[in-house]
């Protein structure tokens, strides 16, 4: 099947995939993540950009430059998961939907300072966490009542803020 069979829309959203410090070993262990991301994006009918860096400042500057044309972010904070406050700020400032990605659930749980402020989370399925996060995010972006950037209904969350369950 083509992944685009799951969609009701053919907008070519631009999804930015970011991998933080210490992620290269996991990425290299599964083959060529760049190629996988390209294949999945093509099958879904969206554009994808992938950036990995061990330098938090480089990731911040990449985000600053990407925001005007990015529709949403998939971010594996790697070694910044428990300490990357500046990365968390840059993602919040982007006012775009952000999905936090992890290879393994052990990286999630109470360790992550990102989880409470991201739109969504996909964790545990190794390289396929990026696939599941990408499919989920694109379907949500297609929905005017959820993450579609042109949606203006009360349930639209395209500006990236999760709705507290207690509000």
């Amino acid at each position: 099947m083509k992944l685009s069979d799951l969609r009701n829309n053919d907008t070519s959203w631009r999804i930015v995939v970011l991998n933080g410090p210490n992620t290269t070993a996991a990425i290299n262990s599964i083959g060529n993540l760049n190629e996988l991301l390209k294949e999945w994006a093509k099958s879904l009918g969206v554009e994808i950009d992938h950036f990995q860096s061990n330098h938090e400042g480089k990731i911040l500057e990449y985000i600053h430059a990407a925001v005007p044309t990015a529709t949403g972010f998939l971010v594996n904070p790697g070694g910044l998961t428990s300490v990357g406050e500046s990365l968390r700020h840059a993602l919040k400032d982007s006012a775009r939907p952000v999905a936090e990605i992890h290879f393994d659930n052990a990286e999630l749980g109470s360790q992550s300072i990102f989880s409470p402020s991201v739109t969504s989370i996909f964790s545990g399925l190794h390289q396929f966490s990026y696939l599941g996060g990408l499919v989920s995010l694109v379907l949500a972006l297609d929905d005017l009542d959820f993450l579609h950037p042109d949606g203006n209904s009360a349930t639209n969350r395209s500006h990236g803020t999760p709705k507290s369950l207690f509000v």
Partner: protein
Amino acid sequence: MNATISDSPNTETKRWKIALLNGLNMTSLGQRDKNVYGTIGSLQELEDLVSDTGAKLGVDIVAFHSNHEGDLVDFIEAATDIDAFMINPGGLWRFGEPTNIAFEQAGKPFVEVHFANIYATGDKSVYTDSALATTMGFRHYGYLGSLVALVAELNQGLLCSH
């Protein structure tokens, strides 16, 4: 399409059978807070959507839901022919230890799925440490992304010996 998501199951293996469990209060889907649950009309609509997506991916979905935690435990204990589980535990995310233990005893991979980002509450799900994977905050689309990724993972042979 890449080789990791096949049009049909590998002929050398049996067709994957994946259980979809929905827990407490999920029977009310469609009448719940649309800020959290979005616009999906009913639990039946959700189960049909996941089943249809499973058919496209070449796997079988067995849907089950209950408002009684004991029913979920009974289902998991009896589900010896299930290859993997997806569960939205509903309100059990905070205290559903019996269901969590049932999964651990079953020894099968399971994916925890939530409509909302429950980590935004500041609390942790009891399932995350024992779940293979956790998906939250994508409303009902998280079920579809989870299913696609779970099937991709199963087809890699990383989880099961057959």
